[in-house]
């Protein structure tokens, strides 16, 4: 219980600081809007084709906007050596990591929930019947992005080319989670029923989340402390 309490203290600190400054969420949201605008030039936004690629577009927006949040996650602690203070605090590496993950997860979900209606308005997408399932996909897919992104954010925090390194390292890693999320989101946004074969993608998402959460919690101490 103490484990979760300390992790939540880290997450609450991050979220409180974000509520006060709003710098990451504003940057991430405006970047997401820019990507949504750019998509309208890449293909005909009024065509029926949009339904077939809607899941892909949506998750590209989430993945790109998410990188901005994840990049700042540990980088914001560099000022005044706050990262050293956090590492020296009673919170273990795993608690620190879980706290950071939860903070990023909430922020990314807020950006996604704001983007979803804007995406629907811009590209004439009707509210899907199975909205709850779409939210479930968002919860699972976003946790995958967050858990890998937060660990790699910790790995790259002190690097010269941090902003470039993080996306080039995490996107290939995220392929299984992104594939599952894109596949399921496309079906759900189009309003089609999920076939038995599609259920496997839920298992892929849950498996991906579980494996990398356990692996990250086990290895984060090595990444942060050595």
């Amino acid at each position, binding site marked *: 219980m103490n484990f979760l309490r300390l992790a939540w203290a880290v997450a609450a600190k991050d979220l409180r600081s974000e509520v006060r400054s709003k710098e990451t969420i504003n940057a991430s949201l405006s970047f997401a809007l820019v990507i949504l605008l750019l998509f309208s030039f890449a293909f005909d936004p009024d065509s029926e084709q949009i339904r077939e690629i809607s899941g892909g577009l949506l998750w590209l927006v989430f993945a790109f906007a998410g990188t901005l949040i994840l990049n700042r996650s540990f980088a914001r602690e560099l000022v005044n050596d706050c990262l050293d203070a956090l590492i020296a605090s009673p919170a273990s590496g795993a608690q620190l990591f879980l706290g950071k993950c939860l903070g990023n997860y909430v922020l990314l979900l807020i950006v996604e929930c704001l983007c979803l209606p804007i995406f629907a308005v811009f590209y004439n997408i009707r509210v899907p019947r199975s909205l709850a399932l779409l939210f479930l996909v968002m919860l699972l897919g976003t946790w995958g992005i967050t858990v890998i992104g937060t660990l790699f954010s910790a790995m790259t925090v002190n690097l010269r080319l941090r902003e470039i390194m993080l996306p080039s390292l995490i996107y*290939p890693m995220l392929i299984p989670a992104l594939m599952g999320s894109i596949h399921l989101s496309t079906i759900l946004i189009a309003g089609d029923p999920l076939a038995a074969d599609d259920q496997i993608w839920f298992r892929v998402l849950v498996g991906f989340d579980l494996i990398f959460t356990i692996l990250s919690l086990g*290895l984060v101490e090595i990444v942060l402390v*050595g």
Partner: protein
Amino acid sequence: MRLKIILVLSVLSGALLAWNLHTMFLNVPDEANQGAVFRIIYFHVPSAITSMIGFYAGMFAGIAYLARKDLRFDAFAASVNEVSLVFATITLITGSIWGRIIWGIWWTWDYRLTSYFVCWLMYLGYLMLRRAIDEPTTRARLSAVLSIFACVDIVLVWKSIEWYRTQHPGPVLSIRNGGGMAPGMEAPIYWNLLALAMLAAVLTIMRMRQQTMQREIDSLRRYAHAF
């Protein structure tokens, strides 16, 4: 001692490669449907297997570094991953040439091609990460973690992309229940795998020597700067 190993392995690998080239070009007949171009499999498949063995050897060396904190394990991990990336590149290029002739296209987003390309990108990231870190122990630590993540992810990427329809030919080796090849045509694949594996070992050992020397030069440079 290490020099002798390099020398022996180089000679063996060179001789075996020459013998394999003789067998595959002069003794093995053209394939009924594909013609002469099928011979690309003798380099494509062994390169792919060598690279995957190398990537996993790199992961185990990374784990060994994390357990023992001995930089020799890191030097091995870095060298073997670098060499494996070269073999992975050879696999992609040879596959692409074969695809152009047989399929009529250089590339298709088939599951094996996609997952192999994802794997290639991960290890490109591995080398980028190593170049971006100057401090040897931090570099060893973080690249070991990345290597573990990459090796676990390769399996997930492979399985998840496999559920999409595939265009790549099915297993052809009898050990993978493929059995689509005549034994006489299949044997050179294993001989070339041995030759390429020995070549990879030679290159890894040579690269390890360079890594060790580089570390010594860096420490001497730091020592010189201290005065």
